[in-house]
């Protein structure tokens, strides 16, 4: 197996290309810029196209065009740029266009800073743009997963005709780890509904407009049914040392890597603690969560935001057990010691 040492931001591009993606449209922003750099380097060399768009608004609309035309297409940005893309993501969702958007989250609101945060959770996981839609959200926590989810995202996008996000933080984008690259996929799936400038596709229409309220309601119901199937079939989560765990730490992205170390440390001290890492943020891993809530005394969610993931967990747990939050913001990262001490404090309380 080919192992290469590289950055998360580069791995996601190589993964995407191995998954048959041949178009990248984006606007640079730290800490996501290496994605644009890698795409600019490799798209043309692999028979693809790369455009540095005039804005994120333009970029997502180029994505809309490429997806309409049947390409596997990628774009990437960070908070401020994702805000700008939201209009286009809503159109993609409405027109049921598969595409992949990478969000390497930085500190906000406003210009914030370029340090890692997880404060885009709400604007990504809750749809973000206007209308009744959701998007699949994958949350990698390693460079290997940046590659793997770069591939998986395209499969899910095509399978469900939906935009898929790869949502992670500046750390996972910036760090380097060894990656095993798989072989490229044989061929991207045939899509009969796209426009290709051919006779067979000249009756095809890509649109999100439905003037008649009944038609639009039907369209929305169809979307909701699709989301229900996704919720049923695509939940993914990693459990770490949860077997006999009385305390469950929950976090995604870089936080889950820190939590893993915290769990090991606490286990050495004899504390029965485990970790749940949501891999899909939509669909939310409700199955693992409800299962773990049956045996756990409490959950502690650790986030680099004002507590956005924790809201969803509390909705699922409905007060059955306490769900606590430990969070940092502004680009500060919760340390192993901080989390360790928080667990000890909560144990004394409960």
């Amino acid at each position, binding site marked *: 197996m080919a192992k290469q*040492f590289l950055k998360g931001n580069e791995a996601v591009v190589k993964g995407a290309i191995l998954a048959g993606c041949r178009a990248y449209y984006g606007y640079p922003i730290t800490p996501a810029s290496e994605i644009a750099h890698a795409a600019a380097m490799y798209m043309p*060399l692999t028979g693809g196209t790369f455009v540095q768009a005039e804005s994120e608004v*333009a970029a997502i609309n180029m994505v809309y065009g490429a997806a309409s035309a049947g390409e596997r297409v990628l774009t990437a940005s960070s908070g401020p740029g994702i805000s700008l893309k939201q209009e286009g993501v809503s159109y993609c969702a409405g027109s049921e266009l598969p595409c992949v958007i990478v969000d390497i989250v930085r500190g906000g609101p406003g210009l914030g800073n*370029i340090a890692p945060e997880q404060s885009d959770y709400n604007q990504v996981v809750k749809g973000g743009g206007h209308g009744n839609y959701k998007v699949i959200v994958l949350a990698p926590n390693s460079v290997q997963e940046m590659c793997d989810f770069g591939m998986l995202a395209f499969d899910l996008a095509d399978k469900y005709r939906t935009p898929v996000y790869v949502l992670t933080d500046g750390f996972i984008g910036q760090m380097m780890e060894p990656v095993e690259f798989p072989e490229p996929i044989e061929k991207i799936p045939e899509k009969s509904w796209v426009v290709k400038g051919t006779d067979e596709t000249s009756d095809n229409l890509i649109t999100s407009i439905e003037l008649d309220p009944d038609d639009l309601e039907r369209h929305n119901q169809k979307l909701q049914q699709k989301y229900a199937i996704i919720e049923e079939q695509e939940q993914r989560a990693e459990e770490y040392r949860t077997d006999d765990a009385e305390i469950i730490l929950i976090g995604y992205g870089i936080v889950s890597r820190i939590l893993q170390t915290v769990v090991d440390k606490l286990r050495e001290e004899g504390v029965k603690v485990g970790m749940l890492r949501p891999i899909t943020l939509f669909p939310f891993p409700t199955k693992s969560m409800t299962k773990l809530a049956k045996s756990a005394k409490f959950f502690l969610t650790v986030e680099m935001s004002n507590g956005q993931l924790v809201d969803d967990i509390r909705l699922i747990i409905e007060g059955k057990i306490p769900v606590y939050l430990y969070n940092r913001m502004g680009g500060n990262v919760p340390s192993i010691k901080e989390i360790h001490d928080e667990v000890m404090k909560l144990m004394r309380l409960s």
Partner: protein
Amino acid sequence: MNTILKKSDSFYDVYERRPGADKLTTTYCPGCGHGVLHKLIAEALDDFGVREKTIFISPVGCSVFAYYYFHTGNVQVAHGRAPAVATGIKRAHPHSVVISYQGDGDLAAIGTAEIMHAANRGEGITVFFVNNAIYGMTGGQMAPTTLIGQKTMTSPRGRTVNNEGFPICMSEIIATLKAPVFVERVMIGDTKSTMHARQTVRKALKLQIEKNAFTFIEVLAACPSNMKMTPSRSRQWVKEVLADYFPLGVKKDVSGEFERKDLSRMVVKNSELHDALNIETAKVDSEKIAPYREKIINEEIKIAGFGGQGVLSLGTVLSEMSMRHNYEVSWLPSYGPEMRGGTANCSVKISKKKIGSPLVANPTILIAMNRPSLDKFEHDVISGGLIIYDDSLIDRKPTRDDVDVIAIPATKIADELGNTKAANMIIVGALIEYKNLMSQEVVLESLGDVLKRKNLVELNQKAILRGAEFIKNLKK
């Protein structure tokens, strides 16, 4: 006019997509310029035999439902974004004929950036820009092209220069750009001007079909309903008033000398993809690394110095070499809050076990290449840890007495080797020798694969050997 109003093959016979009972007429008001322009376009697509190849982009505005009528591939898009969408489509299917059809609100207000940049890139598309000096769809608000003094719902006392500025002349602006091949403003006014518009539409499409040229056709057109005029009166107004402010004519035409733009993409076989992506297999020499198989290793290394001292690459080289010893490894650059304090630094974790947090708060090994780094990180090192510092640059000794300390004049030795920049590899050599972290042979052999600048491999190999030698002499 009859000939051009005949239903063409590029229109559907029956407008099935149109809701309601009437499936035969368009949604456009009598006298509206959109209907006429649609016909001119459809007729040209027929005549050039490109209906099947055509992908028509409907904007937001009165022509939002152009897809009711055109029997072509159809894509309906967000307000103002048609040229960006067209970019994505044309690049996916260079053989197709892509039409971006837009109103004046769509193109000259909300979509100004998209049209400017698609034009500036010279995308191989045809833009039809319907300038009716008003927002039709939303009920007659002011457009960027509304004339001075013209009353609209949002300029009820007439547009003033003071408050709204001047009507914007898009064709003239687009014509200043280098990439557009053909830019003309025409009108749908009387029969003569419409017949001329017909020729212009054909020329523009032909230039896309034959040469992938970017062309931009502005069409002055009437909106009788919002102007509250009869169709004939509104056409008169277009001719006499609108065309007076927006001069008709060719604004740019370099179609003669323009050479066909090649939009084809490279063809790369799947079997060539790993090479094209520069995916290399890091060689692992299992025999040579055998002595390290049982080694228990759990290092958390902080490497810090000035930018330019090669601290980041010191970290990546160590990491690459660790990977070649089948160790788990992660590398994290100083980033975000870590960047405070004027030092560049990176964190490397090397372990036999899967690595949790890649962050290093309490290093087992600190490599300090300058004084601020030693000052900043000395007290974070775990008790029993190791501090390696460059004593040719750092003028004080570490104060800790519970850690191992190696003072190595890395910069001085590097200067002796003829390149200050090799100081980081001297430290690599020293570290792996001191800690017996890995096989020096493997490190030396792999250096060529790991370093980007191949002309520096030999120098850096020497540096690694010198670093190791320094430690051997210490141990003696």
